[in-house]
């Protein structure tokens, strides 16, 4: 890995279990990143948000609800 490789910021709603940790590690490795900083934020209501550089993979329940709200 390059010296200045990015660290990924991962936001989850509750403490992640081992399965999730493993999946996240594999996911970010594919995208050239080997460290993950976890933040626990109950506000996202569930799911996961992974941020690598300025790329965001937003799989949170909150963002899905926002999408639904837009059409109601």
């Amino acid at each position: 890995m390059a010296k200045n490789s990015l660290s990924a910021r991962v936001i989850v709603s509750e403490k992640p279990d081992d399965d999730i940790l493993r999946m996240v590690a594999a996911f970010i490795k594919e995208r050239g990143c080997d460290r993950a900083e976890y933040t626990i934020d109950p506000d996202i209501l569930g799911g996961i948000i992974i941020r690598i550089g300025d790329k965001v993979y937003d799989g949170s329940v909150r963002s899905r609800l926002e999408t639904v709200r837009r059409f109601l």
Partner: protein
Amino acid sequence: MIDLNEIGRSLKEKIAASPDRQAGRSTGRIVYSGDGIIKITGLSDVQYNELLDVRGGYRALALNLEHDSVGAVLFSGEESVRFGDYVYSTGKTLEMKVGEALLGRVVDPLGEPLDGLGEIDAEQSRPIEYPAPAIMDRGKVNKPLQTGILAIDSMIPIGRGQRELIIGDRQTGKTAIAVDTILNQKGENVVCIYVSIGQKASSLAKTVNTLRAGGAMEYTCVVCSTADDAVPLQYIAPYSGCALAEYFMYAGKDVLIVYDDLSKHAVAYRAMSLLLKRPAGREAYPGDVFYLHSRLLERAAKLSEEKGGGSITALPIVETLAGDISAYIPTNVISITDGQIYLESELFNSGVRPAVNVGLSVSRVGGSAQRKAIRKISGQLRINLAQYRELAIFMQFGSELDAATQKTLSRGAKLTDTLKQRQYLNYSVREMIVLLIVAQSETIDAIPAQKVTMFNEGFLDYMRMNKQDVLAEIDPDGEVGEALKGRILAAAEEYLNIAAGGGEEGENA
């Protein structure tokens, strides 16, 4: 009953169509917001003209890509967007809904309905910016687009695939000509698109009502942005309308598109450019204001037969100030289009309506598309009118005139009167031929001055009712023989006698 399943299904469809946030889109944060402009840092892989998704569900268009930030314009939500909000790229450029479903509808520049007639069920969409047809894909303009207005169809003929500018001061009947032309396409198999750019909502409502009352909405779509719409919406309106027109053109149809009007479009673009801090040029317009209109009008074309033979005829409208056609935007658009119809307030106020200035109006390609009979008959018209005007100016000096000059003058005045035409009273090609034959014959001398317009309207009614056979015999693509001409003139004299008998009524009418 409301069908819950139906609601659920449509909700699912909409969510599926909305940008996918899990796909790993690049993001940025708003670092400036004001006057509908936002600046964003981040957004590493954004493209020019890309649609952006602002937190809260607002949309923006990326227009300035700079080394440390991206400048974008908001379509809505100016008041709600906050400093630091996330902005997501979408990987898409703007698209307009297209399809038959849009005919008869009033929509905004993004294809959303504004007429309260329910959802638009359009299956396809097209990018609003699209390259113009290539040179080899184009055909020759060879079919006329009848406006139904005698002055235009006889002297400034418009062909399908042509771009003819309508230019004039405010209140000279520019929109009226465009609306009359749309109304005249009934039964002609031409799809019409009326694009309103920054118009007053009240005048737009009037136009839509006129089209609806005239039964023209069946084949017309109105794409509108009113004066209170966000500036970016006014900016994209003509491109959206054109995308819809292209859908029909590439499907082999003939389309008429009216841009009402491009001077307001240029003003909207100027506002946007100045706020985005692009350098200002002449009259504070940005440097690419010529390209703004040329890329739009180049998309109007006649396709070759191999490409389906469809066409887009564009009627852009430009408003001048105090008749100044040498201002920046008017000269630009004049040079891009294939001719112009120049309307004058002086003519309009003196009762010449449509107020077409025949001397300054030209059509550079329409002549070859004109119907043969009309071309033949109206060949001398322009010259005769020019001679009359020259003499009329000379006459103002009050010199004594010989009989021949007096005759030229009275004929010229009557010819000018023949070209007057009430709004919404369109003539068919055959009727135009009849009027032109009478106006250029001896018969016209018998009609009292000031009564020509009245005579024409009455005479056409008379022909329609009593001389159907004569009208039917005229072949617009052939030649009008001497015998037929004689019958037309005989009918005119017949009607004159009748009208003279009941002259009292005529005078009071």
